[in-house]
């Protein structure tokens, strides 16, 4: 399921399979994920908790512990460089520049005993050797709309929204071409969330950087992303232009997700939801991972994994037999 954008991809992930191994148990967190982000493009990944979206974000920068995590299959390319085999110090070539990341909970992701200014300065010193650190740090806090006095504060003295701006300033200090934002507003209240999302949009426009926004909130993705990927149980099951995918979902999972997100009522008055449970991830899926919960399942689904197939306009693709050419021909 490669994206619509052809040339100038800052990030390309193809058929990625990542497992965690601990205490003799194997978890196939990401099983078959493919995506691409073009320079300057905003791309979203949607999915419920445990679908592998955070693992995917961390694997991109080698942030999963090498002792327990393993890339079993697939390929990751950042700015045309294959990073799949990277180990140890290799990662320093992509971390921060060209790819920076901001995380969900900005308190636990900031050093508690270091002033904010020193933490931002660290990023500047590493990636912007020509810049004078204090001047560039001040520029960065201006950029994320923080008062200059924040530079002298410790993380615990700031509010949640301010901390997220600090994280953002650190990331921007690296001058990234791609910003990965892993649930950047989930820990914040609704007003602050809106402020941070607006800021992200403005910064992207000002700096022309690409963004990979990971969220469980379809509303957030709808307003902030050009294209969207839907993830389920470690698979990218549907992708395409955000508006197209969310208004004409092809995969039954996306349909259920969209219905649940707009609090659709069923004929009996209950809210729409997806029945059943997420499949266990101890073994890689051989069939469609959504099969056990799918209300549109057919005989074909019990025979083989559906391929990613065109499902609509603007590069809309879904991994489902409903849209697979073989199925259409059979009809």
């Amino acid at each position: 399921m490669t994206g619509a954008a052809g040339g100038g991809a800052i990030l390309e992930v193809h058929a990625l399979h990542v497992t965690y191994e601990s205490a003799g148990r194997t978890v196939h967190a990401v099983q078959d994920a493919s995506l691409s982000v073009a320079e300057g493009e905003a791309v979203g990944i949607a999915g419920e908790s445990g679908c592998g979206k955070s693992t995917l974000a961390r694997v991109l920068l080698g942030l999963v512990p090498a002792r327990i995590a393993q890339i079993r299959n697939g390929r990751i390319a950042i700015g045309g460089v294959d990073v799949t085999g990277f180990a140890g110090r290799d990662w320093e070539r992509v971390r921060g520049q060209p790819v920076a990341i901001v995380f969900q909970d900005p308190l636990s992701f900031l050093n508690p005993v270091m002033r904010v200014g020193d933490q931002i300065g660290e990023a500047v010193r590493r990636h912007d050797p020509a810049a004078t650190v204090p001047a560039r740090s001040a520029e960065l806090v201006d950029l994320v709309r923080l008062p200059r006095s924040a530079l002298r504060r410790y993380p615990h003295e700031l509010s949640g929204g301010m901390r997220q701006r600090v994280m953002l300033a650190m990331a921007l200090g690296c001058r990234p071409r791609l910003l990965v934002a892993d649930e950047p507003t989930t820990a914040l209240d609704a007003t602050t969330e809106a402020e941070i999302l607006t800021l992200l949009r403005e910064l992207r426009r000002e700096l022309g950087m690409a963004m990979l926004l990971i969220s469980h909130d379809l509303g957030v993705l709808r307003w902030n992303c050009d294209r969207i990927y839907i993830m389920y149980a470690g698979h990218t099951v549907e992708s395409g232009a955000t508006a197209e995918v969310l208004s004409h979902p092809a995969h039954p999972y996306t349909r259920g997700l969209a219905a649940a997100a707009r609090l659709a009522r069923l004929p009996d008055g209950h809210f729409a939801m997806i029945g059943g449970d997420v499949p266990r991830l101890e073994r890689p899926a051989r069939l469609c991972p959504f099969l056990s919960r799918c209300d549109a399942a057919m005989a074909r689904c019990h025979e083989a994994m559906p391929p990613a197939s065109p499902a609509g306009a603007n590069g809309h693709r879904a991994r489902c037999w409903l849209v697979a050419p073989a199925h259409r021909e059979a009809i």
Partner: protein
Amino acid sequence: MRRRSAAWNWLAGLAQRPAGIGSALFILLLLVVALLGPAVLPRHPLALTDQPMLPPGGASFLGTDDLGRSVVAELILGVRVSLAVGIVAALATTVVGLLVGAIAGYVGGLIDTVLMRIAEFFQVMPTFILAVAIVALAGPGLTRVIAVIALLSWPQTARLARAEVLRVGQLDFIAAVRSLGIPEWRILFGEVIPNAIGPVIALGMLIVGYAILLEASLGYLGLSSPAIVSWGRMLSVGQRYLFSAWWLSVFPGLAILATVLAFNLLGDALADLLSPRSATR
């Protein structure tokens, strides 16, 4: 409440612990005495001017010893030895232990296993007996005593530092720093160790007390240079006159007790204050 800085925080926290602030002030007093004491004494502390074996009270204040030297002057001179041994030994122990433990915990794998086996090798040795043996064989000397203490106590610090580094190393913000592309050695020294050092400093205070006690014990057994006045050596001399001149053993004994106790109480207060579970962090 807006807080100034981490250092200010610690001071404020220490102020709320009477034992901690009391022992800190006492140690400060000892440091002042060690630095200024001999300079402000009316005459050379080892001058044999008074009558020997004068009891406490009167001009001699705490009495005089078998050679007619003032006990209070000797005590003041002994502060230097005790503090120097204690602080230098604890500093050496903490630096070595912190480095070994931090590298073992952060790098892990084979390096961790090798370093920790080496640490265990030193940990199972009986410290006091080995110290006595080394000093008895190689002759007395403060550097030797300091070296023995550091050599035998670093494993404890290393184990604590390793555990703290393991805890801090898997915190979220380390991943965030790593995601900026900061080299690993700078993450270890710039981010991990500053967050792991609290309990190690507290343990360092306990080691100061332990080192002072060990030096005094060696002195008491006569394993210190007669040319240097130390509290342990004063005890060793004093025990010969325990029934005729009690002041020769009681005052150095009290000095050792008070000093070791002060470092232990300060260590406990700091451990309490700097522990990751402490609410002030």
